[in-house]
């Protein structure tokens, strides 16, 4: 679904953020991208939808090469890539519904969007998605009235209503507490599974990455230094990605967590039913 070839990004300051990255993400795969701050994780996913313009290299979404698209084609290509942000990136003074519907802006004309006259199909889909994440009763609340976890759910709805082929997820849990983090990660993974989406999830929490992803890519100073399953992450690999540290505890914890998974799953299911109000 996504193929990146020899991607390079040099910022105007002269910093080389990406040093020839090659990466392929097939349809339906959720890939976790780990690495320390400044490794180039954000730059990498922003080069895909060209919020950052790559210096050289190629990015293919399906058969479409993205790095040379003109602005009109780029807009059309961006509708196929949903993005989820660290600080939720909702427009705080707009309502939850407007935030979700803004995901359809690439599909509707200016005046329709200006008067908030979206097609009924879009509105139906928005309600379906809000219901799926347990927020349909909040549709007319202003986004700044929501809690962090709720905002991130709205952010997920905005990305999914685009009906994308690919999700670009930038540190989705960095501003959330540990429990909400797990719920959000689980939700993203379930939705990717349901819709057979390819996804790149930037995440600095190694534990969460190991819990929710079957493929982990480690980025260090703009180069890929690890690409494999979560079980093969050993102290040597983590040291290579992050630097010298005692990694045994992290790896032990991740094993415990896997046993705990079922318990957590049940707890999360309970949580969702509680979030949904009886209608």
């Amino acid at each position, binding site marked *: 679904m996504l193929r990146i070839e020899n991607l390079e990004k040099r910022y105007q300051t002269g910093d080389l953020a990406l040093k020839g990255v090659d990466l392929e993400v097939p349809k339906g795969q959720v890939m976790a991208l780990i690495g320390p701050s400044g490794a180039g994780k954000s730059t990498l996913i922003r080069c895909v939808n060209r919020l950052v313009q790559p210096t050289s290299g190629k990015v293919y979404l399906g058969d479409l090469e993205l790095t040379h698209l003109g602005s009109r084609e780029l807009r059309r290509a*961006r*509708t196929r*890539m949903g993005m989820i942000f660290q600080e939720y*990136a909702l*427009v705080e*003074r707009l309502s939850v519904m407007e935030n979700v519907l803004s995901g359809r802006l*690439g599909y509707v004309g200016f005046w329709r*969007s200006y008067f908030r006259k979206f097609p009924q199909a879009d509105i139906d889909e928005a309600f379906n998605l809000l219901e799926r994440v347990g927020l349909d009763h909040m549709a007319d609340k202003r986004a700044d009235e929501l809690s962090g976890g709720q905002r991130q759910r709205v952010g997920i709805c*905005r990305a999914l209503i685009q009906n994308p082929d690919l999700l670009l997820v930038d540190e989705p849990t960095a501003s959330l507490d540990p429990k909400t983090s797990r719920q959000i990660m689980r939700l993203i993974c379930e939705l990717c599974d349901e819709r057979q989406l390819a996804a790149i999830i930037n995440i600095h929490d190694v534990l969460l990455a190991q819990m929710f992803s079957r493929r982990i890519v480690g980025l260090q100073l703009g180069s890929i230094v690890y690409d494999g399953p979560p079980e093969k992450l050993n102290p040597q690999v983590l040291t290579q990605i992050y630097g010298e540290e005692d990694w045994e505890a992290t790896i032990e914890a991740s094993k415990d967590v896997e046993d705990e998974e079922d318990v957590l799953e049940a707890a999360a299911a309970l949580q969702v039913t509680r979030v949904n109000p009886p209608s």
Partner: protein
Amino acid sequence: MTKTPAIRRWKRPPFITNPTLRWGLWVGAAIYLAVAFGTMEIDWSRVFEGATRGQRFIASFFPPDFSSRWDSIQDGILESMWMTITSTVIGIILSVPVGLGAARNLSWRPVYLFCRGVLAVSRTFPEIILAIFFVKLFGFGPFAGFLALSVGTIGFYGKLLAEDIESMDPVPAEAIKSVGAGWLQWLNYSVQPQVMPRMIGLGIYRLDINFRESAVVGIVGGGGIGATLLTSFDRYEFDSAAAILLIIIAIVMALEYTSGYIREWVQ
């Protein structure tokens, strides 16, 4: 023998580290102030002699006379209001494109410089200078006043709009860009909601300013209540002038109160 630890003193480091420069600046400022006050000539005997005349002048304002010139006062007020509202609306409409162009995070470099230039020019001249200029261009009357206030509004509103856009949160704007929105949609969904509350407040504040300025502009021939005020001074009808001043004060206070109230409500 026990060694007592040395006491470590701390003082906030001075803003200007060089002591000669620091004290030099203080002394220089003091000398300049002393000389400036010294050159100001106040002839206290003249002030004393004129005091009685001044008293008579002030006394002639009372009681304010609302009735004998009421028609022209009413015309002046209505003309001022017309000038205020039209110039605020037109000024704001024209300032939006200029403000968008003058926001560094939105605009293309040459457009940015051009729009900043427009704003700088219209902010250089106070409304009264603009009014003198437009009166010379278009003749006496409220049209010149309207133009002066409109240009003043563009400078004021455009600059504040540009600055508000420059300080907005870039992340939601990035998010709206990432869904494939067009430029106008992007403005409407990510920029406008962020700047709107403050801009509504500033628009009402500008309405308030424009009414006050409309009185000043009238004095140099730009029509409105200022013209009426000037006429009554010229005719030595100080009681009518007092009435006009009271009406201006009342309207400005009412506007200030409502604008404060509305701004609070919008936030």
